[in-house]
Each structure stands twice: as C-alpha cells, then as structure tokens.
C-alpha cells in the first residue's frame, strides 16, 4: 500500500516538474487563431461589428469574446467559414443586421467642396484628392464600408450598388433557370 502511494507521489513530482519546465520552454507568442480569423474577414474595416476594424474583431473572436454573426459584409458564407474554423455552429445574423448588396461609394462632383474629411475617414485609402480639390473614389479599392458617408458635411457621397456586367458575371448554380434569375435580379 505504502509503496503504491510512494510510486504515485514520485510520478506526480517528476511529471509535475517536467510540465512546469515545458510550459515556460514552449511558450508561444501571439495568437495564430486571430490571424486565421482575420483572413476570413472581408477587410472592409467598416466597423459594423462594433469593433474598430476587422483585426480587432478577429482578436475578440479568437478570445471568445465576440460572436461570429456580426460581420454583414462577410455575409452568410462568411459566418459559415468562421463557424467551420472555430468549430461552432453557424448562426443567422441578429435582428436588424443583414448583409447588403455589394456597393461602392460615389462622390457627386458638383457638390464636393474638397474638405478631405472623407479621405480621413476612409479606412483603406480608397479616396484620392487634396484639400479644396475635387475628391475621387477609386472604385476598385472601395470596400463599400460607408464610413465616408457620415463625415461628409455636404452629403455628396452616396452608395451605388455594383451591377452585374459581362466582366463580373458568374455562372449560376445549375438546375435553377438562368433567365428567371436574371429577371429577379
């Protein structure tokens, strides 16, 4: 009996010290999970999730502090990917949060006063222009985050839905009549 207890105690002592050493020796810096999550996020930096940008939201999710259904630009597929990565069940968007069709911002040339406020608001440097000069949004770089709408003092920016053209047209899922889809769109 005593011998059994001694054996257990020695094993505990040895393994405990090995683990204590290993914990410090193999400590990993940073959070690789947050990087993986950030790769899934659409990088619109729109802040609709309640975090100042995609990276902070990714870090919050990695820590388990934020839900996966707070990124409308990522859409349902985005939620699905996050759910797959994090091993949780996908859930629908909450009340009042819904993905919108992909849009880009457009500056009304006649109204823009060149105040540069939108340039400062744009999180992805998609607006070019100088003070007191007309500003232009580079449509290819615009993520459609709408952050430039609010700061504009003259409301000269509006969102334009990106329409389907021969360029960005995609083959439809088969078995669904293509013409019907087109009419619906």
């Amino acid at each position, binding site marked *: *009996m005593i011998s*059994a*207890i001694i*054996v*257990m*105690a020695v*094993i*505990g*002592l*040895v*393994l*405990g*010290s090995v*683990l*204590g*050493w290993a*914990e*410090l020796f193999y400590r990993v810096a940073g959070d690789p999970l947050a990087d993986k999550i950030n790769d899934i996020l659409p990088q619109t930096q729109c802040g609709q999730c309640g975090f100042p940008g995609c990276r902070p939201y990714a870090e919050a999710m990695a820590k388990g502090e934020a839900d996966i259904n707070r990124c409308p630009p990522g859409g349902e597929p985005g939620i699905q990917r996050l759910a797959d990565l994090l091993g949780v069940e996908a859930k629908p968007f909450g009340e009042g949060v819904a993905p919108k069709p992909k849009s880009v911002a457009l500056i009304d040339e006649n109204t823009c006063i060149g105040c540069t406020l939108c340039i400062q608001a744009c999180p992805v440097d998609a607006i070019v222009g100088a003070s007191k000069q007309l500003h232009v949004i580079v449509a290819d770089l615009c993520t459609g985050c709408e952050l430039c709408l609010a700061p504009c003092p003259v409301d000269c920016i509006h969102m334009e839905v990106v329409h389907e053209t021969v360029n960005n047209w995609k083959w439809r899922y088969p078995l669904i009549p293509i013409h019907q889809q087109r009419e619906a769109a």
Partner: protein
Amino acid sequence: MNEFSHNIKLTSLSLFGFSVVGAVLLAGTFQLTRPSIEKSERDAKIKLIAQVLPAGSYDSDLVKSAHPLPADPLLGLRKPGEYYPATLAGKTSAVVLEAIAPDGYDGEIKLLVGIQPDGQLTGVRVTEHHETPGLGDYIDIAKSQWIRQFDGKSLDNPKPDDWKVKKDGGKFDYMTGATISPRAVVKAVEHALDYFAQHKAELLAQEVNHGQ
C-alpha cells in the same frame, strides 16, 4: 531562471499533492472493499461449478477443495486445469472436471462436466465459447436447454456407438444447419467420461475440504 524554478516547484508540488491524495483515497477504498471482492468472487465461482451439480447433492466448499488436473488430450487440456470433488456428509458425491472441446466451429469450447462416482453425468455446462451467434451458440444454457440432455447420461447410456448427434446416427439432438458445435461438445463429454473411467481411483481419493 528564477521564473523557471518557481514554476517547476509550483507544478511539481501540486501534482505531487494530488497524487498523494488520490493514492491514499484509492488505498483506503481498496482495503475497504477487499474482503467483499474476495467473497463475491468465490461465491461466483461456486455458483458456476454448482450449475453442473444438483442442488443439495453436496455440502463441501467446492472452491477450496480444488485440485490440479494434469494436461491430458482426453480432456482437451493443453495446460493443467482443475477439478472439484464434491462431498455430501463426508462422502464423495460427484467430481466436476474442466474439459475443453477443441474442435468447435470457431475454436475451443470450454466445459465443466459433473460426474457421479458411478460414472453418471450430473450435468454439463459451457463456460466459454466463440460459436456463431444464433447458429452454434445453442450449446450455451443461456441460449437453449440443449445442454441439459446430458443430465443422467453415462458411457453405457446411450451405447458408445450412439454418442453422436442424430445426424451422424447417434442419440443426441442438434439444430439443422449447425452440427459442428454439438458434435464437438458430445465428443468432449464422452472423452471426459472416458478420462473419469480411467482415473476414477485417484479422482475420488482426493481429500475434500469440509469447511462449509
């Protein structure tokens, strides 16, 4: 380095502590349950052996009076086994032999064979087998009463030529489609009786523990 040694101290001591507590708890439980475990194990073995003996036909402690049985091809034993003499009021009333039928459908069939001093079977039970479920496993008392047909049989009853299943011209029942298992058991029981007949004297001469 200080951080390391502190951490190692912390983890090893806590794991040490839990190990000691766990080991002590287990040791205690083990000590507490040991008598009960031994008793119930013995009870179970007695119950198993007693299956081949009619109730009230013995008053001895079957387990304590176990004797070694040498390996013998007649019993199918390749390693030494055991046999259990039973006495009633000091008189040997039966002997329970371990035997093995080596040619089951799927390997060995282990048997307990109870034999009265006059060579008459008190009962046979299969203790271990791997026969096909639903086909050959009716030799097991849990599946069918087939094994009870040995009760009361002896080497002369039926005649040696009839120690076969009916399909082979003998007297023993079988189930259509599954003849290998009963055949093996019938043969093994016959051989066990042969062995008993040959070694009757020594088997019955053993001392029996009456400490019941």
